[in-house]
């Protein structure tokens, strides 16, 4: 369960809203169900009290919404950011996607977010309500009389199990205590795939990527994907739509998507969270991050404002492409 209470967030936001320091509040709101929390803009205290939500399903990274919400209107926007969201915020500032002065960042500590798919595997469908306790979730479903109690660590999402940092890298105001940058095992899964043979890797990715329905949700949610025009919307590109043939055609989409954010991806894990087909998209992004770390030195996008991405930089003794690929075998 999150340590900071919802009331504390609402009180903070209402004060800033009423005193006129901020024009509106970017936060989370309940969607159709208790667990599908959706980002929302709040403009009054009443709206906040009625609809604002802060619980273990507020995984959505709000930093991307600043790009569109700061356009064409004056005044500051209050935004609640979890530690991993602050990296995306910095990265967006680095790319000059919005003005720092227009955002009022309130840093919220995060205890890790729950993964609804893991919960559904335990309780099945028909979840009617969710109650948050100290270290368990009580889930009521349509088919069980008694609520099912589940420990948090069983349903923590993959990205939170491998949390890279509990530290906020940027904020105007901090609620609660700030954490530390953590040692995570986030590249273990990537290493496992690297150790497979070429055929096994192909089989693995064919199994994963051919499930793709090309909804473009991974692109739409990604805080690094903020181009106003996108190649995937261009009918001339050859990769705009889904092919109606039983082949592995989606790999092109996924390579291009992951490559486009290489060196800028902060590994926030939003792509995997929103994927309706549960494709582990973060494994593609992490592969790029791992390669960059190995070949060009440790790099964490969004750690500081104004950092130069490894792909727009070079040294004269970089590794040769063919050597880099062959090295893994020797």
């Amino acid at each position, binding site marked *: 369960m999150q340590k900071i209470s919802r009331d504390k967030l609402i009180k903070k936001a209402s004060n800033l809203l009423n005193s006129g320091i901020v024009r509106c509040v970017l936060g989370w709101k309940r969607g159709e169900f208790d667990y599908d929390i959706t980002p929302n803009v709040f403009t009054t205290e009443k709206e906040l009290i009625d609809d604002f939500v802060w619980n273990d399903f507020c995984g959505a990274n709000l930093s991307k919404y600043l790009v569109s919400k700061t356009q064409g209107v004056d005044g500051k926007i209050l935004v609640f950011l979890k530690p991993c969201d602050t990296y995306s915020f910095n990265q967006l500032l680095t790319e000059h996607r919005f003005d720092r002065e227009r955002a009022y960042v309130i840093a919220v500590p995060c205890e890790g977010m729950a993964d609804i798919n893991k919960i559904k595997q335990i309780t099945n469908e028909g979840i009617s309500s969710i109650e948050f306790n100290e270290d368990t979730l009580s889930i009521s479903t349509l088919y069980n009389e008694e609520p099912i109690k589940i420990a948090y660590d069983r349903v923590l999402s993959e990205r939170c199990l491998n949390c890279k940092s509990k530290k906020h890298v940027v904020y105007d105001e901090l609620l609660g205590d700030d954490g530390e940058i953590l040692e995570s095992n986030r590249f273990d899964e990537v290493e496992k795939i690297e150790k497979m043979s070429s055929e096994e890797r192909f089989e693995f990715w064919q199994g994963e990527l051919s499930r793709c329905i090309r909804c473009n949700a991974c692109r739409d949610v990604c805080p690094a994907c903020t181009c106003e025009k996108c190649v995937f919307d261009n009918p001339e590109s*050859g990769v705009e739509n889904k092919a109606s043939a039983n082949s592995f055609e989606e790999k092109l989409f996924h390579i291009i998507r992951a490559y486009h954010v290489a060196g800028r991806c902060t590994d926030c894990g939003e792509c995997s969270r929103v994927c309706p087909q549960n494709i582990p998209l973060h494994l593609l992004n992490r592969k790029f991050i791992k390669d960059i770390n190995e070949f060009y030195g440790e790099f964490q996008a969004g750690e500081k404002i104004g950092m130069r991405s490894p792909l727009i930089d070079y040294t*004269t003794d970089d590794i*040769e492409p063919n050597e880099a690929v062959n090295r893994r075998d020797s």
Partner: protein
Amino acid sequence: MQVNEFKPLIVAFCCNWCSYAGADLAGNNRLSYPADVKIIRVPCSCRVNPMFVLRAFQRGADGVIICGCHPGDCHYTSGNYYTRRRMTLLFSMLDYLGIEKERTRVEWVSAAEGAKFASTMNDFVSKITQLGKNKRLEDLRCKK
């Protein structure tokens, strides 16, 4: 007797200042290399967007090779250094997805290295011929 010999389709991106001139020199010197190599002239090897490589595969290429000036000799000072980083990451990703790593290559060929150009292409084409048709990156949308 029917002979079903596999003829690969190779796309070679050659930088205008070094490798394209190197190919020209190979021709002038009467050095032969397979006609399966289709050269695309680019102003600099860093003009090659990683998507060009994917696009070539998508439209039926069996191998893609990028040739540029030797590091340090770029006509635009630093273009090929960027190529090197980009292609390192792209090739590594293709390998990660299970695409045969022999299908992609970067070679530095200067304008004086006609012989190197010819031998590189001979070597690359024979490797790809051994590998056979590119099945793993084909796209049925682009099949005629």
